[in-house]
Structure formats: C-alpha cells, structure tokens
C-alpha cells in the first residue's frame, strides 16, 4: 500500500474517532451545542468516508505512479494537505464563530472552505486521467511507447 494511501486512511481513522465523539456530545444535553451537529456530519462524511475513498482510489485505480515521495505524487499529497488542513481549520474555527467577535475566526473558516475546495480540485487533477477502460490504457501505453 503506498504511503499516501496509508496517510489518508490513518488520518481518516482519526477523524472517524473524532466524529463519533462529537456524535456522543450531540446526544448529551449539557454538551449538545448547535455548532457540533455540522462538525459531526463533516468529520464523518469528509474526514472519514471521503478520505478513505481518496486514499484507496489513489492506490487501486489504474495508472498509479509507483515512485514514492512528494514530487512523484504531487497532486495526491497536495490533496491530502489541503483537505486535512481545511478540515482541521473548520474543526477549530467553526465552533468559535457564535462566541467570538474576532475577525480571525472568520478568516480561518473562509480559509477552511477554500482549502477543502482546492483539495477537491487537486484530487480531480490526479484522478481524472486515471479513470479509463483497459482499451484506453492500452492505447495510452502504445502512444507512450511510440513517443520514446
């Protein structure tokens, strides 16, 4: 399993735990703040489910660059960084919005949204060319060989 997939899955597991803890907090009346509900759903659906989808697809889909390292897997690692930085910022900043007047939290929430969307775009850049049939792969390989 490539390093990037391990990173996605292990980070995803972390978010999975966080989401279930938030789920417990939502059910306890004294802890149940309205801000926790969107965090519970997003850590579960983006932090866990989407994250394992990203990690496993980068590993299993055809056309993977088997060389390890940031440069070799540039779009994959950028996706990992953007998505997780965005999620962590959301987790930290969103609960502060109703309780603090500081513009700093608003900037963090805005950055979180931008980072997550950017992570989605870098994922598309990595995966779009890799979604192909066997025939397309054969043709691509043939084209590559002819070029050399």
């Amino acid at each position, binding site marked *: 399993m490539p390093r990037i997939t391990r990173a996605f899955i292990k980070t995803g597991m972390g978010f999975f735990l966080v989401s279930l803890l938030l789920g417990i907090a939502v059910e306890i009346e004294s802890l149940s703040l309205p801000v926790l509900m969107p965090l519970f759903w997003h850590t579960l*659906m983006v932090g866990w*489910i*989407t994250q394992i*989808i990203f990690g496993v*697809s980068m590993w*299993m889909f055809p056309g993977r660059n088997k060389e390890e390292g940031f440069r070799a897997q540039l779009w994959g690692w950028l996706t990992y960084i953007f998505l997780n930085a965005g999620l962590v910022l*959301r987790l930290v*900043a*969103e609960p502060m*919005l109703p309780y603090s007047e500081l513009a700093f*939290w*608003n*900037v*963090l*929430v*805005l950055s*979180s*949204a931008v980072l*997550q969307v950017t992570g989605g775009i870098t994922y598309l850049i990595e995966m779009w060319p890799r979604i192909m049939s066997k025939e397309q792969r054969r043709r691509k390989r043939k084209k590559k060989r002819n070029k050399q």
Partner: protein
Amino acid sequence: MLVHKAYPLHPAIWVLLPVHIELLVIGWIVQFTMGTAYWILPRYLKGSSRGNTKLARSMVFLLNVGIVVVIADRFTDSSLPLAVIGRLLEVSAVALFVGMHWKRVVTYNK
C-alpha cells in the same frame, strides 16, 4: 455555505443545503461506491464479464436523472411530486445495482 457562516452572503443560501447533501451523499459517495463495485467485484466466468452493459448504463442514467429531479424539486413549484419521482428513479438504480451484483458477491477460491 461554510463561507456564509463567516461572511454572510445572502440568507437564501440555506436553500442550497438539501442540494449540497444530495450532490455529495448520492452524487458523490453512493455513485462512487456503486461504480467501484461494478468495476472491482469478482467477474462472471462465462459471457459478459460484468453482466449486461445496457443495464449498467441504465443504472447510471437512472441514478443521475434521479439526482437531478430531486434537486429540481427544491427549485420549482411543480405540481408533480418531483422529489418522490426522483427518489423512485434512484431506488430503481439501486435495485438494478443489487440485481446486477448479487451473483458477483462470490468467491472462486475453494
């Protein structure tokens, strides 16, 4: 919507919440798992390896039309029960999915 929480854009933005959920849950997660299962589950040893291709295409078509119809329900004042029609289309896609994949959930190792 997340940006709206920090910098209010327009109160009507919350109309987009069901669309956001529909696109990401059905359009992204459900569709991705269905597509990947179609690709990766054990294939048939005889005949077309993944079953009837036309049915598979219909499955994709029904699911996506269903998503569009459910979303359309949020924005139109149609007298038709669009949300129900959309959900029925999505269910038909899932029924096709189950029917097509039931026999592919198998092991060929003894």
